[in-house]
């Protein structure tokens, strides 16, 4: 049985959600309105409806995926390659999905991490958590050394030079950076609403900005308040360079908010493409150097801020990779 009328009808049934819904609700009425012959009409009325709904759902998911990725390939092929997520879910993805998919914990965790006899996943998870804790300990040791031995001498050394770079504070103040990141997020949301999709790079950029803002907020309102270390300017004017626990404010110095901002932003991209690690590390180093030379922060602030920011960024990058890997095919 074959006619262009029937093919058109089936194609519409497959791709047009409203038409399909009308057909499911009242197949006879919709079929009658399509000027099909008797045999075609009978065939249409006998259609496999659960199969139709499942096939349409699968098709729609593929079309969404192809639309989003296809357009980004046309617009920014190099960026798409640059930030293409890793092939498989990382260990942190398993952990994140385990804690975020409350209704499907056991299956979801097994799906992304322990299927296929991959018993090494748990070992890998333990290894990665172990590496992170070792890094935390190493970072704490470095921070302790810098705090005791290097912070104040370095700040004194750059005190005169800092006037030269002070004007940068106007251009790269936290408020300016946060506003720019908010604008980027808003732009990506608007593009998503208007066009129906955004490029993979756009998604990553939005996630990086969002992570950066969140990490900055946590740093300013929790960590800085917790540690309460006076900033270099206050120290130069007589304050003691010491931890004053739970007595800090947003103006406290430790950890550096700018490095948390930059580190979280960079961490997302670093997690998703190894090629970006070196260039972004160089930019982070430049930012850290400017913060120290300009006497906005002590060395220990910069190290701690970088560690916290990159950790947050990598975690967010893992979450995004996990989301991509869990999309329906």
């Amino acid at each position, binding site marked *: 049985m*074959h006619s262009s009328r029937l093919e058109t009808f089936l194609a519409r049934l497959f791709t047009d959600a409203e038409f399909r819904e009308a057909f499911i609700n009242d197949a006879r009425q919709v079929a009658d309105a399509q000027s099909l012959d008797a045999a075609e009409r009978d065939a*249409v009325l006998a259609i496999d409806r*659960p199969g139709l709904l499942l*096939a349409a759902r*699968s098709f729609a998911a593929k079309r969404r995926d192809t639309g989003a990725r296809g357009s980004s390939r046309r617009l920014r092929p190099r960026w798409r390659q640059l930030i293409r997520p890793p092939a*498989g879910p990382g260990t942190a993805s398993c952990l994140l999905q385990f804690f975020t998919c409350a209704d499907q914990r056991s299956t979801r965790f097994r799906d992304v991490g322990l299927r*296929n006899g991959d018993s*090494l996943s748990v070992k890998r998870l333990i290894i990665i958590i172990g590496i992170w804790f070792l890094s935390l300990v190493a970072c704490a040791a470095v921070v302790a050394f810098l705090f005791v031995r290097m912070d104040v001498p370095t700040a004194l050394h750059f005190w005169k030079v800092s006037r030269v770079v002070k004007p940068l504070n106007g251009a790269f103040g936290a408020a300016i950076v946060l506003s720019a990141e908010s604008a980027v997020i808003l732009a990506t949301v608007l593009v998503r609403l208007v066009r129906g999709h955004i490029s993979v790079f756009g998604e990553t950029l939005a996630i990086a900005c969002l992570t950066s803002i969140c990490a900055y907020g946590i740093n300013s309102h929790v960590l800085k308040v917790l540690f309460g270390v006076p900033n270099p300017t206050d120290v130069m004017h007589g304050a003691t360079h010491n931890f004053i626990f739970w007595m800090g404010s947003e103006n406290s110095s430790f950890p550096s908010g700018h490095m948390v901002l930059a580190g979280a932003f960079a961490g997302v991209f670093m997690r998703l493409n190894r090629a970006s690690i070196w260039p972004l590390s160089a930019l982070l180093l430049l930012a850290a150097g400017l913060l120290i030379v300009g006497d906005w922060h002590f060395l220990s602030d910069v190290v701690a801020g970088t560690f916290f920011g990159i950790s947050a960024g990598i975690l967010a990058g893992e979450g995004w990779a996990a989301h991509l*890997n869990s999309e329906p095919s």
Partner: protein
Amino acid sequence: MGPAVENIATLMAPPASSMDEPEWVAAITAAAGTPLLLDLHNLYANAVNFGHEPLAYLMRFPLQQVAIVHISGGVRIDGPAAPGEPPIARLLDDHLHDVPDPVYHLLEALGERCPRLLTVVLERDGRFPAMGALMDQLRRARAALATGRARGLRRPQRQVSEHALLAT
């Protein structure tokens, strides 16, 4: 080798059909004069989804035309449920899961009956497991094919040589 025709997986029974799938595939390959790329997971999914016994379903395909074999995995998805009844589940061929055991059994049966040289391709498009797990699936495919070939040795002479490739 020139182009080949592949059998597809479908979640819905093709409406307004005057032939079933094996008849249609046989007619197409005969008319086009091309070899058949037999996707065993597609075949298995269609058999499961539409109430056929997979091995019997395989036997109805033109096995003498098969030159390439695809194996892959899929996932069961739930469809809408009628009031008071459990949801209807269908097997979706998604290339994101391991090759299920019945597909190896089908490969074994195919190896026993197909007279041609076969190239077997393991398809995997995402959620990649460790490389060792993929290699294990290839090893199982080789073993299944070898078992099938051994069983078929009593049949008329033919060329027996296989390649196994990994494609993503």
